[in-house]
């Protein structure tokens, strides 16, 4: 187990290193002089050169990468060209919103997904099952930012139940959480249904019925616990998906999260901010996948006992 964790940690570090390499070189091949654009049309040549040296842009590209990496490792992500603030501060502030939104959506997705999946499995091949599964296909196919707009129109404007845009208190998260969570809920529902159907066929369920246990206990304790392994696999991967999904959906609701920060940075060609944002979110995703992998190993003895997947 220990050697598995060490191996997996090395892999995660390698992946983060590659991601930093790709991010840096992709974002630095952009044509156009950023410094000149930043200082405006009236800046003298000397002023541009001085600014460039100050930003560390006067050395070769590989050197710039090494310096950038060194700085990042010490927690210095540089300064935003336009906001004149430390990139890390901006990112961490914005990330709070994105993370909250992903968590809120995650909760919606898990509750909605599990309940729908279990319900559909119990009514296998009957009308409720068909209806729920058709809705789930719809949910998987709809882009979350469109669901967000439709929810804004229906639940926000027409019915007036929830505030439409911005974040002030808990209730403002309801629409964002649902619009982001529905897609994952649909995936979870489908996996739960399949997994539950598999388990409900087995002998120990029949035994449990024969013992006279209540149906609720059998379903939620005996069956669900055994159906959980494939569901947890999906749950782990989904969080990373929700995190990036949140970056798009928050634009609909005007939430000042990392997606909005990045899009603004992209529009202003604020390269340190874009670079920092991408590497930060990517790093967090890699760490989440790492943790999820370790958790699988804990749950699934096949991996724990040395067998590779």
């Amino acid at each position, binding site marked *: 187990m220990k050697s598995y964790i060490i191996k997996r940690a090395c892999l995660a570090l390698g992946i983060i290193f590659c991601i930093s390499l790709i991010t840096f070189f992709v974002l630095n091949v952009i044509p156009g002089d950023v410094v000149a654009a930043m200082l405006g049309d009236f800046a003298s040549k000397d002023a541009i050169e001085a600014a460039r040296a100050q930003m560390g842009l006067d050395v070769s590209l590989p050197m710039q990468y090494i310096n950038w990496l060194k700085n990042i490792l010490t927690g210095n992500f540089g300064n935003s060209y336009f906001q004149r603030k430390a990139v890390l501060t901006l990112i961490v502030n914005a990330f709070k919103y994105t993370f909250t939104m992903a968590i809120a959506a995650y909760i919606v997705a898990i509750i909605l997904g599990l309940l729908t999946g279990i319900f559909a499995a119990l009514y296998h091949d009957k009308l409720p099952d068909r209806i729920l599964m058709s809705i789930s296909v719809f949910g998987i196919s709809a882009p979350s930012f469109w669901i967000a707009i439709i929810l804004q129109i229906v639940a926000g404007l027409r019915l007036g139940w929830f505030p439409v845009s911005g974040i002030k208190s808990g209730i403002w998260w309801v629409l964002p959480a649902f619009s982001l969570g529905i897609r994952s809920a649909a995936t979870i529902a489908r996996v739960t249904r399949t997994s539950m159907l598999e388990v409900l066929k087995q002998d120990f369920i029949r035994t449990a019925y024969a013992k006279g246990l209540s149906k609720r206990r059998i379903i939620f304790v005996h069956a669900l616990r055994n159906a959980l392994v494939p569901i947890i696999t999906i749950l782990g991967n989904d969080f990373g998906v929700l995190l990036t999904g949140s970056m798009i959906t928050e634009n609909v609701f005007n939430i000042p999260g990392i997606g909005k920060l990045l899009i603004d940075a*992209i529009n202003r060609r604020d390269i340190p901010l874009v670079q920092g944002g991408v590497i930060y979110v990517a790093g967090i995703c890699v760490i989440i996948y790492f943790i999820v992998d370790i958790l699988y190993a804990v749950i699934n003895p096949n991996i724990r006992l040395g067998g590779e997947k």
Partner: protein
Amino acid sequence: MYHSDILKNMAKNKIAILSAMILICLVIICIFAPFLTPYDPNKQALNDRLLAPSMTHLWGTDQYGRDILTRCIYGCRISLSVGIISQLIATFIGYFLGVAAGYFGEIVDDIISFIIQVFSSFPFLLFAMALMYALGAGKVNLYLSLGFLSWAATARLIRSKVMEIKNQEYIQACKIDGGSNLRIILKHLLPNCIPMLIVSITLGIPNAILSEASLSYLGLGIPVPTASWGNMIAESQQFIRSNTYYSLFPGLCIIVTVMAFNMFGDGLRDALDPKLHSQKGGL
């Protein structure tokens, strides 16, 4: 498996047939777009701004008086082309890297497997955003960046398939016979992988379409005024108070298309190889 078997399997699956018919309709609509609508997708008619659906404009008009149905039809061209071309690119890269890893093994496998790991563990949409920013918005750049980012799942599938079949007798026979590696890869391994490749293209397309819509929504995909479902939704957002229909239709177009590809892909997978249960990661 013979083609007749595949067709027979497909014919049994009513949902797959229905989605195939929807897809054929969509392709026909894309090809004959100029003949299907009397309007120009980009021509502004400021007197007809933001009209509700009516007999002259079935889905209403947008803030520049452009017919929304017409723009959705032309948006379909963008979505299908981005979906199909990007997935062809992805499959091409995925096949060759997957075969190289599975066939040559050892250090080649180690390196390629690591690259596959890297590409499947970074957040897809985030890097699509970064790439589109670096390359600039536009159709060709969308093909390239979505293709370049989504090959990992295919490569992984092909790798394990090749590892499974490379030691079979007919491959060994070809080797003893003096067949070159390239010959084995193209003449013997490729036909075995074709069913897998078709399935992974079909199931990759809906993800590519959704990614294109998201990127265009953010302003990083198809630049305005060219119509794409994503940028139409972005433009419609200012008018959700007055014009509900404007947001509704492009989204429904996305859903119908993505749903049809997903269900057709599932049907195809079951028909080609009931044991093949793979899913490509999406948004």
